């Protein structure tokens, strides 16, 4: 096994806080959400596992060594596993096409999708077609497919998640980079959550900021 400190990119003398920060930064970078539609999803999962193991090993070692530990449990190892493949429950019209995509037979899936007549192309068809396009790297086609699937069936969590993922990649701050040079990876979402937290805290103390 690799040296866990090397995996996290910190020195062995790093404080618990530093290790936690390094771990968090890496976990954000390799979070399975960034790679859901990517052909590299399996590699990202492995990397995430490695980071989780390294962090667990270090915290265990330090606990035994009597060093102070903040008890931060972080992203659990199981988290990364639950993202492998496209978990789907309920009935599916295109079960066999889903299987093709999950096992990486993209060309086959594309052919099967194309052979379905226009009249039968429902939200799921567009969603699956979007996944095929994403695997090919055709993200514009994928985007319009996911959008179509979402418009046709906005209540389906699977389509909504796919559409939201695309939107966050297309917005600034996607993929962990922040071109405006502020705090690393502070997306709109972080700002909203931050404001919300601040507001909640303020309200608690009796004041009301907004």
């Amino acid at each position: 096994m690799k040296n866990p400190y090397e995996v996290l990119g910190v020195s062995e003398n790093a404080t618990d806080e530093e290790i936690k920060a390094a771990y968090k930064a890496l976990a954000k970078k390799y979070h399975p959400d960034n790679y859901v539609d990517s052909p590299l999803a399996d590699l990202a999962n492995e990397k995430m596992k490695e980071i989780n193991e390294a962090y667990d090993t270090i915290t265990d070692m330090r606990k035994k060594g009597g060093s102070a530990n903040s008890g931060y449990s972080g992203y659990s190892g199981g988290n990364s596993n639950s993202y492998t493949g496209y978990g789907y429950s309920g009935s599916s019209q295109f079960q066999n096409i889903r299987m093709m995509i999950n096992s990486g037979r993209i060309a086959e899936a594309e052919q099967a999708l194309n052979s379905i007549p226009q009249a039968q192309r429902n939200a799921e068809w567009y969603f699956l077609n979007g996944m095929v396009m994403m695997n090919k790297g055709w993200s514009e086609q994928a985007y319009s497919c996911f959008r179509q699937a979402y418009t046709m069936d906005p209540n389906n969590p699977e389509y909504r998640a796919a559409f939201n993922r695309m939107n966050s990649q297309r917005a600034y701050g996607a993929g962990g980079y922040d071109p405006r040079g502020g705090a690393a990876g502070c997306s709109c979402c972080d700002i909203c959550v931050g404001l919300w937290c601040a507001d909640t805290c303020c309200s608690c103390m009796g004041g009301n900021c907004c």
Partner: protein
Amino acid sequence: MFGYVQIEKSELLVKEYETYKSIYCALCKTLGKEYSVFARFILSYDFTFFAALSMGVHDQKVCFNKGRCTFNPLKKCVFCGTGNDNMKKAAALSVITAFYKLKDDIRDGRIGKKIRSYLVYPFFSRWRKKAAQKYPEYEEAVSAMSQMQEQVEEDQMCHIDMAAEPTAKMLASVMEMQAKNEMEKRIFSELGYHLGRWIYFIDAVDDLEKDKKDGNFNPFLKYIKDEGDNENLKKYCNEVLNQSMCLSYNAYNLADIKRFKGILDNIYLKGLPFVQRKVLFGKGEFNDEESL
């Protein structure tokens, strides 16, 4: 490729900037040594990035030497990686892509550009021949791109993903050749594909006004035709570019970078977004944030 893959100098450490400069100088020197003193003029940031990335992922030793600059003999330079295989590959790829770019200019450039291109054609052709002999796989990838590009531009049904496919595929296959194992192959192919898309799109955005006037092909003209030419166009271009950059960066994160990580990170996280903003929105709008 056209020089869009740049560093953001103000965000680099001084030592990183010096290393970057020495890679740039070494690529210039290699072009001079392997091809001709005039081949130095095709030196570009894109291939400096390529050289830095491919040296960055290989174990092969990278040497730093001191020397004098050919163009300014009073200046002393540091050269990083001259004689390194990856540097030679970057030089060969520069020469080959420059040749096909020239061919493209002859095909659909303006008259002045055409004449200029014809004049230098024999030189470029000779250098390309030399590079192609050594690295036939590069020649194959780039010539395939050139052919495919011609085809997609003639296709009436061509959508934006198809238009970017030739450049994306070319860079994907060239990057793939730098890989040492199957896993790296997949990573580099994805990295190259989406970086290729980004380069293609940024060039298309940059040329949009000119192409509109000259009636040349441009992948964003279809959007204008469908949706009209309004402020949404820039937003749309920005989204397309963001996504390509994001996907390439995600792949890059999975690569095992052994050196020059600071420089490469800077290019992905600062350099490319900066270029993107400059091309899309001009310099003025971001002055307060960028000025130092």
